[in-house]
């Protein structure tokens, strides 16, 4: 009898162990994210050696002067709506951003705010080229084109160094000699000796005029953390990209230029509050290509009587309008299947203003979700926004 009881308990403990260990992480691994933060941290210890540049290695490096595309760089970089429309209809030779899915990159290309460095590296019949670069002080994006092979796949399906699966097992890597050549791994960017930028790499780079997806091209973009580095308007960027089937990375020394004039960076440090919720706008960056809003918020979101019972309020989101009430489009809105937190650091990008505004107004709003986290929509299929007028903030732009 006691043996049975013991067995039950032993079995029970094993079940607990099994159930807990079976729980999967939401992501495959957090190592990259954590290592990015590690690399960004201030180092006080001098024992940590910096990675040496690879100039000593035998890689083909191509350096060349940059050409300004479009040639239409107006005084402030801001283009009047009429001019913008006219420019859109002119196909630019050599421009690839003009077909981009991101309308502000398209605009940047068309209004002459990008550069075409004309850099190529060819190995074994495969050529990788950096075609176009956009830098406006707050975002940095460049396009890499592959020539010498025509393949639907651009990004590498092979695993990079040190990859593990969900349970932490090291994945069997296909050795370099056996890999199919020509697939791109995420590039490593070094600016003024610094690495570890928050970058994104995609092969969804746009459609041509006849509606077909652009092939054999990828775009790398640094989406945040640039302005605080206070880079000069011109600098060199080293791009190292591993390509499947090649032991050594393809390397480029890319000259980067900020052609956007009339950029404004504000640090209002203004706070608005209502009840227990408050937010402080830390900075606003206005360029002809991007509008960026960085703020910190604290407290529980205010909710209306309609947002109760089976409905609840989401976290706070922020719309931006100019002095005439004209709104910007937010680049990406994240939906979270959980209760709002009580502290947020928001770093969000929006479409650019057509003209430099004289003042901007921040309009916080929440959306409404049901118990299953689905968002309540209006008749037109748009999420219902509940604006909080008492939390609006107007900021003058000098």
């Amino acid at each position, binding site marked *: 009898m006691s043996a049975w009881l013991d067995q039950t308990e032993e079995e029970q403990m094993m079940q607990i162990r099994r*159930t807990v260990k079976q729980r999967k992480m*939401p992501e495959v691994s*957090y190592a990259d994210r*954590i*290592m990015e933060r590690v690399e960004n941290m201030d180092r006080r210890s001098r024992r940590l050696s910096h990675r040496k540049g690879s100039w000593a290695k035998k890689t083909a490096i191509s350096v060349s002067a940059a050409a300004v595309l479009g040639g239409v760089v107006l005084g402030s970089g801001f283009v009047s709506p009429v001019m913008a429309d006219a420019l859109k209809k002119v196909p630019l030779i050599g421009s690839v951003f003009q077909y981009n899915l991101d309308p502000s990159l398209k605009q940047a290309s068309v209004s002459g705010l990008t550069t075409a460095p004309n850099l190529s590296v060819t190995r074994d019949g495969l050529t990788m080229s950096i075609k176009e670069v956009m830098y406006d002080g707050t975002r940095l994006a460049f396009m890499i084109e592959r020539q010498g092979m025509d393949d639907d796949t651009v990004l590498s399906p092979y695993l990079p160094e*040190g990859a*593990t699966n969900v349970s932490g*097992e090291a994945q069997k890597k296909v050795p370099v000699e056996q890999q199919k050549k020509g697939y791109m791994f995420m590039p490593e960017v070094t600016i003024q000796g610094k690495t570890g930028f928050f970058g994104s790499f995609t092969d969804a780079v746009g459609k041509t005029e006849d509606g077909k997806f652009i092939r054999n091209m990828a775009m790398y973009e640094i989406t945040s953390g640039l302005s605080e580095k206070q880079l000069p308007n011109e600098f060199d960027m080293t791009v190292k990209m591993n390509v499947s089937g090649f032991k050594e990375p393809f390397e480029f020394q890319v000259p980067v230029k900020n052609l956007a004039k009339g950029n404004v960076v504000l640090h209002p440090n203004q706070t608005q509050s209502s009840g227990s919720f408050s937010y402080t706008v830390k900075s606003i960056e206005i360029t002809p290509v991007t509008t960026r809003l960085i703020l910190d918020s604290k407290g529980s979101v205010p909710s209306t009587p309609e947002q109760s019972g089976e409905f609840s309020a989401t976290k706070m989101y922020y719309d931006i309008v100019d002095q005439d009430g004209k709104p910007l489009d937010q680049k990406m809105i994240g939906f979270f299947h959980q209760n709002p937190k*009580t502290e947020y650091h928001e770093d969000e990008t929006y479409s650019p203003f057509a003209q430099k505004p004289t003042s901007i107004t921040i309009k916080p709003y929440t959306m409404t979700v049901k118990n299953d986290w689905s968002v309540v929509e209006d008749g037109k299929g748009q999420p219902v926004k509940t604006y909080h007028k008492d939390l609006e903030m107007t900021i003058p732009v000098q």
Partner: protein
Amino acid sequence: MERFSPGAGGRDDIEAVVEKVKNGDRQAYAVIIRAFEHQIYTYCYYILKNREEAEDALQDIFIKVYQSIDKYNRQVSFSSWLYKVAYYHCLDQLRKKSRRKKLIDDQKELQQLDDHRQTSSERAVEELLMNLKPEERNLVLLKVVEQYSFEEIGEIMDCKPATLRKKYERVRKKLIQQKSKEGGLTHERMVRSN
């Protein structure tokens, strides 16, 4: 399929990697992260009862460990040291949480825990666990799941092994009582057939 878990044999490998990191090989830390992230995630998840919070805690813990890696001197195993940071970090998070409105959050969290891919017995185990107090759950996670000795747990929690043994006995009894309440009928049937 053996998951890389630091135990006998694996332990020395980890210590070697930690030495590399201490000597300036920053990238070697990624190996440490990959070796432990799943364990630390599940630990944080069961203590904090929230997926997003567990993700945040996981990352913060690895950052804290990295920042203080110079202080690690092999007086305890690296994994005990890692769990110590995790334990105190989660304690902090729980304290901060308790200051917020708890009622609605708990309801929503319990809903979130309902993972439709789980079997009913798995769900029963989760309910069993989640009904324990955080301190009790912590002990179960370290002793039953990660199978640390009471000496090691003592190092993690800054507590005497003897005290932990007593606490663990109480939690064990609690678990058996709860389990037998549910499995009551089955148990009776077995008794009769004897």
